[in-house]
């Protein structure tokens, strides 16, 4: 292949959020008529790359070139004008508007300054046909469509903009097999027409089937770009993991299969998100939930805590069955449950309220005296917890919002520890906090386990699962596809399980 001008080129691009580097000195080229797969673990920098390419954020350093000329995208509209169109993972459709409105949201056909309803309708019918969604009525509201149809409409919307470079970010994650076939067909047609395609997917077989070229990212750096077939699946996985310095984890006790079960889940299902989940977690055991983002891990934790409605299957705690009717019933189970939520700012803390008020919010029942709250006991409990968790706050009356991310997370943890739970569910508790606090949290989890508490722990960081967990369950499409125990919890096994491929199973040395 001769040296062509790339459709899109990034030169020495870096991106920092606050002090944290999301992308470091990346050179990247995408050509027309080529399907380019972008690979990497969660947090490897793929999303940042896409955001820069599609004008959602600006690069901190470096240059973006379109057809060889430097270009600065200030907004997605700028990128669209340059022919770069992205199908976002988090959908960009407007739920209260019709499919036809959505498909013409940018570049609305007008006549005399008014929206040309007829032209818009015709465009919608044509686009829906192209993506094989003839069953979707153009006047249907987007919010009434099932997720898979919505994703197809999202793709149709991107096609409406006649892209020169089309970016697909996990575009097939919610699709049925038939729709995926359709998407493959469209992508190949577009390639024939000379459109360049950036394809981000976690599904290894998709990459093998579609991509002409692939680039692997890791820790915000580009590792390698290679042609189709130049690397084996095992080599690619190795590139994605790399050799990285791991955090220090507290020592794990040897794996013990004879623990008394604390939490038994059988055949738990919820809509399409959870499909027959069964597992047990023993007393004093740390069970990790792994796999790609969005494979049902969050829903599983929410279901156990009683937040979801219409969950099928049974859950028993310490041998007695648990009613999944709401957080109250979960908190009063024989072994009380606690859920440390994912987004501490939204679901975990009342930011303007004081450290003290936040800490005791979930355990006010225990601190009651008559109609009021026993303030002396409250103060004692708060002080004890602040000391135990080493929460660094100027004062317990300071607003939680003024603390650092790590200390905020400690407050969330402490709040639930004050309820004296027997089973602790954690949803990605170390996301966005500093290394020092992370290590404190790892030690805390191990100590809690040693006290006989059961911990179920979802993390997007594979290294954390390996370092902390006695057992790791890998979820894929709402099912447990693999259960790794003790020594089998290696990065290779976790990544392979997450991608749902079957390379040679690796035993730890």
């Amino acid at each position, binding site marked *: 292949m001769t040296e062509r001008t790339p459709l899109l080129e990034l030169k020495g691009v870096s991106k920092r959020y606050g002090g944290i580097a999301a992308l470091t000195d990346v050179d990247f080229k995408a050509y027309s008529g080529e399907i380019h797969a972008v690979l990497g673990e969660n947090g490897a920098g793929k999303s940042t790359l896409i955001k820069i390419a599609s004008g959602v954020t600006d690069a901190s350093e470096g240059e973006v070139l379109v057809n060889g000329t430097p270009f600065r995208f200030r907004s997605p509209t700028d990128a669209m004008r340059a022919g770069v169109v992205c199908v976002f993972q988090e*959908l960009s459709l407007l739920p209260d508007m019709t499919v036809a409105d959505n498909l013409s949201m940018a570049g609305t056909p007008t006549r005399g300054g008014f929206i040309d309803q007829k032209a818009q309708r015709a465009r919608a019918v044509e686009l829906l046909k192209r993506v094989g969604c003839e069953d979707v009525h153009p006047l249907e509201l987007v919010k009434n469509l099932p997720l898979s149809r919505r994703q197809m409409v999202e793709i149709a*919307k991107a096609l409406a903009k006649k892209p020169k470079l089309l970016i697909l970010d996990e575009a097939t994650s919610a699709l049925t097999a038939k729709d995926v076939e359709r998407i493959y067909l469209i992508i190949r047609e577009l390639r024939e027409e000379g459109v360049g395609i950036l394809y981000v997917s976690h599904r290894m077989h998709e990459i093998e089937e579609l991509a002409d070229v692939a680039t692997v990212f890791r820790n915000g750096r580009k590792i390698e770009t290679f042609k189709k077939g130049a690397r084996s699946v095992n080599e690619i996985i190795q590139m994605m993991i790399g050799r990285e310095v791991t955090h220090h984890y507290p020592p794990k006790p040897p794996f013990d299969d004879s623990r008394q079960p604390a939490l038994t889940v059988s055949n738990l299902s919820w809509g399409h998100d959870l499909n027959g989940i069964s597992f047990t977690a023993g007393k004093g055991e740390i069970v990790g939930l792994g796999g790609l983002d969005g494979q049902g891990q969050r829903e599983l934790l929410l279901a156990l805590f009683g937040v979801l*409605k219409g969950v099928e299957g049974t859950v028993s705690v310490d041998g007695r069955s648990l009613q999944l009717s709401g957080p109250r019933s979960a908190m009063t189970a024989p072994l009380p449950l606690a859920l440390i939520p994912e987004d501490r700012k939204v679901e975990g803390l009342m930011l303007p309220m004081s450290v003290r008020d936040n800490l005791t919010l979930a355990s006010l029942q225990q601190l009651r005296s008559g109609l009021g709250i026993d303030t002396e006991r409250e103060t004692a409990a708060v002080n004890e917890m602040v000391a135990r968790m080493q929460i660094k706050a100027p004062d317990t009356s300071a607003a939680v919002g003024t603390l650092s991310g790590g200390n905020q997370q400690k407050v969330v943890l402490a709040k639930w520890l004050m309820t004296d739970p027997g089973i602790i569910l954690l949803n990605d508790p170390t996301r966005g906090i500093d290394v020092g606090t992370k290590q404190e949290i790892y030690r805390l989890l191990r100590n809690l386990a040693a006290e006989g508490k059961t911990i179920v722990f979802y993390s997007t960081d594979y290294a954390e699962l390996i370092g902390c967990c006695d057992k790791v369950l890998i979820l894929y499409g709402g099912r447990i596809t693999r259960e790794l125990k003790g020594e089998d919890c290696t990065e290779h096994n976790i990544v392979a399980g997450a991608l749902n491929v079957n390379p040679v199973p690796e035993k730890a040395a």
Partner: protein
Amino acid sequence: MSDWRYHISHNLGTLTAVGLFAVMFTIYISNHEAGLTPAVATTAANKAVLLALVAMAQTIPVLTRGLDLSVGSVFVLANCLASAIVVGTIGQGLLGCVAVLLLGIVCGFVNGAIVVWGRLQPIITTLATGAIFYGIALWIRPTPGGDVQYDIADFVAGQLFGVVPTALVVLLLVVLLVWIPYRSSPLGRGAYAVGSNEQAAYMSGVPVEKAKIAAYTLAGFLASLGGLILTFNTYSGEASAAIGGTYTLNSIAAVVIGGTSLFGGWGSAIGSIFGAFVLRTIEDLLFVFDLPPLWQPLFQGVVLLVAISLGAIRVFRIRNRLELFT
């Protein structure tokens, strides 16, 4: 045509308000001793059209997921200004009308500019600007009084061909010449898009800022038109805080009864017109049934509560309890 199914379901809120009004108005008229004479209709229309215009004004910011607490003040300000400058010959009077409407546009633009460029919350911005607009109204007319061009006033407050209340025709013209063109322009669609999901709208290339500023500006225009017509009904201006407050709160009630979502992105100004009509008819019903007018707030409250309960039916379909709080 299966299209009809969609058109009906998209306008269910408006149709419900129309139905509610039709029932209430029929009860009113059939119990009125004079029946539906042009005089009865004109009296009813003149009162209802004022609130209808202010409710239309409120609808547009609400569609963008905002709120305009200054509509009542703009309404009062326009009334005071009109009582000072819509005087003289017919020509001078008409020029004065244009000036009053321009002032409304400026007030609305100021609201929009502060919300968009100042990045302040609409509710608090318009609370503040509303107080300022009211202050200006007081400055123009410290005590009730003033005058208005009689020929224009009698024409607008009277009947067309001796039958149709002119105020209703004016309202119809506003719908045909302002609302429908706005609704079917990219700018109007932008307002719906912003209210539906601002991030997604931005990602889709919708001019978010322009859509918001236009929404508040149009609200200012409609509210000032209401104030102008008020002047034609009363032949005077009054800087009354009570009138401003009542119109602001009733406009929000009318928007809700008309099926527009306070969460933005859904609804129609036509629904709000009928929401306003419903609220006005409550008053008339109390009158024909000889009930004390003191009961009016109570009945308005009940109607409002029933209307919003209809909108809350979605709660029964929720699968994730956390969605109850969004």
